[in-house]
């Protein structure tokens, strides 16, 4: 079935994946394809950005008609900053991993968030270095065991916690096995104006999938604790009023910049994602209890995005005509007089 801009879901596919069969990352690529198709994203305006690692290979596997940039390890955020500054009309989807973001790229990750560069930042988090064959990453859980490298005695860096503390206005966590939740959160992230961090636990079937490993399928399925039940309501889509009331008596409505909503049904914990202190608390508690908390962890009214704080013109800098790139000869003459 064609979407609103006349494209089939298949049009949003990329090249065949070269990751290990069963990799959680491939599942995420599929959710991105579905979300882009559902939201009728114009692919020519989408840019896909990534660093280095298994996760960073995946932009080749979705949205084949979009420009993509597979940059250097950990430094995708700066490339994304430059590209979105050069052209503010672009829709940026960034894909990174736990090594790419949590170790070599931690600095750029936090500065990207601080600048509020408008993009969806997907972290495909498997807690292990896959391409170099199974070293611990900075998000590996304390006490975790790996075949060759033994016991991890260092505490994990929680990339969602870093994002909240760093000033991100949209922070979510999900599990690659939960396709419905991944899609809902990705849609909301796409509608967000600013940096939207979506940390998706994505088991590594080759190096980190022992049942007891905290980022394995079995552990994720057994220990996932969603914060809410969700529904994403795109802008312009009107649901029958009664239904909203019936389904979401205790619902929190979070409105995105483009007018869409994400509706969150509170579960027992009563988490309100608009409360920053609470977001930090639940993340820290989950880490202590080795709970695997998913959902929209934190959301606040968007701050100005980078192109706004830079006070640049509305038209894309990349498309400025020569007349706006080079002042007149008279302007140079006058300037020279001021140096005489």
């Amino acid at each position, binding site marked *: 079935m064609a979407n609103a801009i006349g494209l089939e879901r298949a049009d949003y596919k990329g090249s065949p994946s070269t990751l290990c069969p069963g990799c959680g990352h491939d599942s995420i690529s599929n959710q991105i394809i579905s979300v882009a198709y559902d939201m009728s994203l114009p692919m020519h305006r989408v840019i896909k950005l990534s660093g280095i690692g298994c996760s960073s290979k995946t932009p080749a596997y979705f949205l084949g008609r*979009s420009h993509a940039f597979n*940059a250097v390890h950990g430094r995708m955020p700066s*490339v*994304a900053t*430059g590209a979105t500054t050069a052209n503010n009309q672009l829709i940026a989807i960034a894909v990174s991993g736990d090594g790419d973001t949590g170790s070599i790229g931690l600095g750029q990750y936090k500065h990207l968030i601080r600048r509020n560069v408008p993009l969806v930042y997907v972290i495909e988090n498997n807690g292990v270095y896959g391409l170099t064959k199974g070293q611990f990453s900075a998000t590996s859980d304390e006490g975790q065991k790996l075949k060759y490298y033994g016991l991890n005695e260092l505490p994990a860096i929680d990339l969602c916690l870093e994002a909240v503390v760093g000033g991100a206005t949209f922070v979510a966590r999900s599990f690659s096995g939960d396709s419905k939740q991944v899609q809902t959160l990705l849609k909301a992230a796409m509608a967000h104006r600013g940096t939207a961090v979506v940390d998706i636990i994505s088991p590594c079937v080759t190096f980190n999938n022992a049942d007891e490993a905290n980022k394995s399928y079995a552990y994720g399925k057994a220990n996932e604790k969603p914060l809410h039940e969700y529904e994403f309501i795109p802008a312009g889509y009107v649901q029958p009023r009664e239904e909203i009331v019936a389904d979401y008596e205790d619902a929190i409505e979070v409105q995105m910049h483009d007018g869409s909503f994400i509706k969150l049904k509170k579960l027992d914990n009563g988490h309100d994602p608009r409360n920053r202190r609470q977001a930090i608390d639940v993340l820290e508690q989950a880490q202590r209890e080795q709970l695997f908390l998913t959902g929209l962890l934190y959301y606040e009214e968007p701050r100005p995005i980078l192109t706004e704080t830079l*006070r640049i013109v509305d038209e*894309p*800098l*990349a498309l400025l005509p020569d007349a706006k790139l080079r002042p007149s000869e008279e302007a*140079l003459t006058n300037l020279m007089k001021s140096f005489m």
Partner: protein
Amino acid sequence: MVLEMQPRSETANPSHVVNDFTLMVATKNGSGSQTSNEVLIRSLFRMGIPVSGKNLFPSNIKGLPTWYSIRASKDGYIGRKEYNEIAVTFNELTAAEDISKIPAGGVCIIPADWKWGQSRHDITYYELPVKETVTAAAVPQEFRDRIANMVYVGACAYLFGISMDVVRQALLDTFNQKEKPAMMNFGVVERAFNWAQANLPKRDPYVFEPMNETAGKILITGNEAAALGSLFGGVSVVAWYPITPSTSLVDGVLDYRHIRRDPDTGKETVAVVQAEDELAAIGMLIGAGWAGARAMTSTSGPGISLMAEFTGLAYFAEIPCVVWDVTRVGPSTGLPTRTGQGDLLFLYVLSHGDTRHVVLLPGSVGECFDMGWQSLDLAEQLQTPVFVMSDLDLGMNIWMSDPFAYPDKPIQRGKTLSKETLEGFIEQYGEWYRYKDYDQDGVGYRTIPGIDHPKAAYFTRGTGHNEKAIYSERSEDWVANLKRIHHKFETARAIVPQPVISNAGDQPARIGIISYGSNDPAIVEARELLAARGIQTDYLRVRALPLAASVYEFIRTHEQVLVIENNFDGQMAQIIRMESSENLSHLKSLSLGDSLPMTAQWIIDRIVQTEG
């Protein structure tokens, strides 16, 4: 022919020296002397006297010694001189050494408050009542320390012949025509002038007299010139991290980007992002260049080291961007506030694997402007990072120059396809592959994101790829790709700024000099002085890497070739040798690398030694 070394000083007991001497001011960093020195330079400039300034400053905010040399030269020489006839010694920590360096017949101007004594009998001392003058001028307390330097401005004006009108104008120029601070300073200058007039009989031979050699000229730093060149070159994204001595380049962009501001909305057409480090700065450039912006950064050696990895990506993924390296002295943190040309070789081959870069080498503030816009054109024409190597001397010191010429050609965007031209391209060729060499010049056609065409997208990567931009580990693809990029480098060789050759006569002189960058003023001066002693030289100034064919032609046609440069290892000489299989035994490296701007004297001494 008997050759003699040029004497160290020709000014021993001359009776009258007009517009041909150097005045050096020794103060403490952060004491406000920069303003006083600028006033003196601007005063001489207003008097029509060719003038140049060299600031030798410490890596420090306040307190360490700093020296500023102001050279007046009736012959128009603007290079550094090795000695200063007049020393204003206002820093008690260095005064002893500063005084010892004054040539016989020179002048020492020193605060009377120190009661220092006059240890030398072969120089003239003038002692100035600094504290009294400032106190008498009733300057608000918070300005007193900084304004004390205006005392030597006033005394020098009287002693060496600068009129108060000229100083007043120079003060207004220095303070951007703001009356209040200019006049507060002028009050002290005038008081010191009057005191000197009443109390200091002139006992030295040095005088400034008006000339007509600066009319229509400008005074500007190389970094400001580079900023203006970039703005006229259409730079639209600047990402940077502060580092001496490059910082004032981006400051220049911020100061002057109003000339590009949208008049209707008041919004900027130049985004300036202060990055978290140089790695991020160049990453932003690469993202911006890839997306179609004209992207530029300025940095110095340590920043270049950090940019090495990303530079390789931009080289291999073929993304335009411009990196200014305003060099300081390495290795490591080295001497952050001294000058040199030690980054040349590193820039040329920056990053791992087989890389080779375009490096432009401005030799004047005028060329900083020209290469400001030319570098942005070349980066897009060649789809590669372009480096511009300036240095601290050129970048941070004030230089006299003709006004800059407006770019003589329209902005060059290179082979960037729009929706329409992509459509036309596909009609013509039946295909479009990003890295295919359709024109046999090594440069492919690129698209930028956002083009509404189903075939516009391609995948940019630093991993191995074929001409279709598809991931490839095939050896054949790898070799074909690198060969094409090397071919592109040959295209670059022909379109980068070509050498400037200045011959002594119709027939080649015996000695050919090859140099580049900010050594130019010293070489120009040295050649004239050598010629006056009967040693003729031809001179080729390299303005870019890769080297033009004419460099080797020049080498072949000269009996002896001297490659003169300001680094320790003779890096340009190494590059010349590296790229030639010819016998270059007649090519000799004269490299300095002493952390200071080159002097004519050093060149003359070396050439005289060589000839002797």
